[in-house]
């Protein structure tokens, strides 16, 4: 419709204006011609009126206007009448002249002298004394006319000059009715305009109908189709039974729709196949919690999911173990993923994650249902294994160590042979070493298998380092080493497992004391960004670059081959376990530098936020 308003209506209006304009110009031209003709007729009538012998056609035709010299003597009005207009003969002459007009259209006649003063008229009780200025202006010409309209009628005012011997002596103003000339034209004109309006309206209706059928309807159709395609509805064929530009446009739309449909179907097929192939349950919910899609895994877990009742089925499946509705609402409100903990649903354990589908707003939620039954079982089995293995391995070792210790402490006097004392002592030492190895192996396996450190708390690392230094000081002193540590009590606490943290610091300081023959071992703790950094600097012989690569790896004592390993120093697992532990506590660990003057080891551990 807007298209019509914009294009057709202005054209129609323009045509109408032009037609009406033409009609009016034609009327004006016609009127002008007819009035001119009427004026000429009045001129002839006035000419005849001045001839005494009416009916002498030949004499009339030969005579020109009043100025025709010589013939003057034969006229009703002549020059003398104007020279003495008040004389009875003059008056009579004027009266006669005016009577001679005998034309029904002539209404009033005024005769004026050459100054415009009215000297005779056929109007009863006329108070007019002078001709109108228009009339006076004519007195030197061929005559002139003007038009006036009075009480609904149109009148012609003809000004006819009286010229005798080439001299203008006066003029007559003849007012005649024009209605008989103009009325037919006006009537005809009104008819024409009415017909024009009617024809125009008919034309408009016809054009509109044609436009509607040929242009608007197809355009509206294309508009609807384009909107449908825009909304993603690609199933409706676009077809216009037309070979014009709109038909071509429709064909273009149709091609576009087909291509879009094919590519979308391909995308959907890929997506569908991908989603169906997922091992975990995958459900798409719309903003009204209707299930838009559920993959096979989801159906296998929950039973066949129906679109409308799917959400209810989901919530009732988890019952009080997991509040899916609350999780859905939180996911939509925060526009962030919501992940459940372990959900114990009878014989199975699940983890449910909700991910919002966000455009400008959240238009739905993807629900992932992960069957973690086996994973949970595996973790439990692993934990059980490590607990049982630790217990079962340590118990006999503890028995050996305890008994050896008791022999040393309580039965020494019963052993007469010093060799026996030595043997007991060796057995005791070996049992302790074996316990350490078992502990290291169990630790390493546990963290290699993905165990996490759960006992994370706010810990005063400065104090723990102090405890370690205190415990090792005796060993250092015995070797003639200085063990330096100036604790800074202002440092913030860290997030760590205190036992594990102590184990790492013990490993660092112990290693430094073990591998340094003279000089000093210095422990420092400094803040570094969001971390506290502990460094242990020794004055040992340093570690060669090729051996540096082996640090923090399993069973490595830097600089030792398998055969030359020194079992009395350690298992070669210390740094490896330290790395596992520090990483599990979200810190970093490494060798800062090493030269022939010594090495610096470091680790970082996150500061506990207040």
């Amino acid at each position, binding site marked *: 419709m807007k298209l019509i308003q914009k294009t057709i209506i202005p054209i129609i209006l323009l045509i109408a204006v032009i037609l009406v304009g033409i009609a009016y110009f034609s009327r004006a031209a016609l009127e002008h011609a007819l009035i001119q003709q009427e004026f000429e007729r009045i001129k002839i009538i006035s000419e005849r009126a001045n001839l005494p012998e009416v009916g002498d056609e030949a004499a009339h035709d030969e005579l020109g206007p009043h100025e025709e010299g010589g013939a003057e003597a034969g006229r009703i009005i002549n020059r003398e009448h104007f020279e003495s207009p008040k004389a009875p003969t003059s008056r009579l002459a004027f009266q006669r002249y005016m009577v001679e007009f005998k034309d029904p259209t002539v209404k009033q006649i005024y005769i004026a002298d050459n100054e415009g003063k009215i000297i005779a008229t056929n109007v009863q009780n006329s108070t007019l004394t002078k001709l109108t200025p228009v009339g006076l202006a004519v007195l030197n010409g061929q005559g002139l006319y003007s038009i006036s309209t009075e009480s609904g009628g149109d009148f012609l005012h003809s000004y006819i000059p009286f010229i005798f011997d080439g001299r203008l002596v006066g003029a007559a103003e003849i007012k005649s009715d024009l209605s008989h000339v103009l009325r037919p034209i006006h009537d005809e004109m009104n008819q024409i305009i009415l017909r024009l309006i009617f024809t125009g309206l008919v034309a408009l209706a016809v054009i509109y109908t044609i436009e509607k059928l040929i242009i608007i309807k197809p355009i509206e159709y294309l508009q609807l189709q384009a909107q449908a395609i825009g909304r993603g509805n690609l199933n409706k064929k676009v077809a216009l039974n037309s070979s014009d530009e709109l038909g071509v446009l429709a064909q273009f739309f149709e091609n576009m729709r087909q291509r879009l449909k094919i590519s979308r179907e391909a995308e959907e097929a890929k997506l569908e196949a991908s989603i169906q192939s997922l091992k975990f349950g995958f459900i798409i919910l719309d903003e009204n919690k209707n299930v838009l899609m559920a993959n096979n895994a989801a159906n296998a877990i929950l039973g066949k999911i129906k679109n409308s009742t799917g959400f209810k089925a989901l919530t009732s499946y988890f019952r009080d173990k997991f509040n899916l509705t609350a999780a859905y609402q939180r996911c939509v409100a925060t526009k962030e993923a919501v992940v459940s903990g372990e959900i114990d649903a009878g014989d199975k354990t699940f983890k449910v994650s909700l991910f919002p589908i966000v455009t400008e707003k959240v238009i739905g939620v993807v629900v992932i249902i992960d069957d973690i039954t086996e994973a949970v079982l595996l973790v439990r089995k692993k934990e059980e294994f490590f607990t049982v293995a*630790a217990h079962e391995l*340590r118990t006999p070792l503890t028995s050996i160590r305890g008994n050896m210790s008791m022999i040393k402490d309580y039965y020494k006097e019963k052993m007469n042979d010093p060799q026996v004392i030595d043997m007991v002592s060796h057995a005791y030492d070996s049992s302790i070493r074996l316990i350490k190895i078992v502990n290291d192996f169990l630790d390493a396996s546990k963290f290699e298998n993905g165990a996490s450190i759960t006992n994370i708390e706010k810990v005063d690392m400065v104090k723990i380092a102090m405890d370690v230094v205190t415990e090792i000081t005796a060993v250092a002193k015995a070797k003639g080493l200085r063990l330096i540590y100036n604790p800074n009590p202002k440092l913030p606490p860290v997030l760590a497992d205190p036992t594990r943290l102590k184990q790492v610091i013990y490993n660092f300081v112990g290693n430094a004391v073990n591998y340094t023959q003279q000089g000093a071992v210095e422990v420092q703790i400094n803040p570094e960004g969001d971390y506290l950094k502990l460094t242990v600097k020794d004055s040992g012989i340093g570690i060669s670059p090729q051996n540096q690569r082996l640090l923090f790896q399993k069973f490595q004592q830097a600089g030792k081959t398998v055969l030359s390993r020194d079992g009395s120093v350690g298992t070669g697992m210390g740094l490896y376990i330290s790395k596992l532990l520090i990483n599990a506590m979200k810190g970093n660990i490494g060798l800062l530098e090493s030269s022939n003057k010594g090495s610096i080891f470091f680790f970082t551990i996150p500061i506990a936020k207040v």
Partner: protein
Amino acid sequence: MKVLLVEDDGYMAQLYQNLLGLEKFEVDMAGNGQQALDSLRTMQQLPDLILLDIMMPQMDGFQLLEELKRDEKLKNIPTIVLTNMYAEEARARAKSLGAKEFFIKSEQDPKDLVEKIKTILMGV
């Protein structure tokens, strides 16, 4: 002084029995938590201290600690947990259930245990 030793492993039980005997303690023995509870409830004279293992059949050390705390007559007897469980959680749990001390058997020598026992009994 009387000590109740709750330990399921025969060798370890014998080791600590020996140790406590050498240190002149009177020792009562139990093979698991249930046995310990039964004998405590029928005893004429209650022990001055209970040494208990954690990993035991029937009733483990943690359960025994809970039962002891529930019993008005027994809840004030000091306890030392003897175990080879290293986990910090185990130590924390034992402490929260009222154990006075947590002794890792493989990490320390028997005479260290004697020191801990004496410290606790002196303090009583």
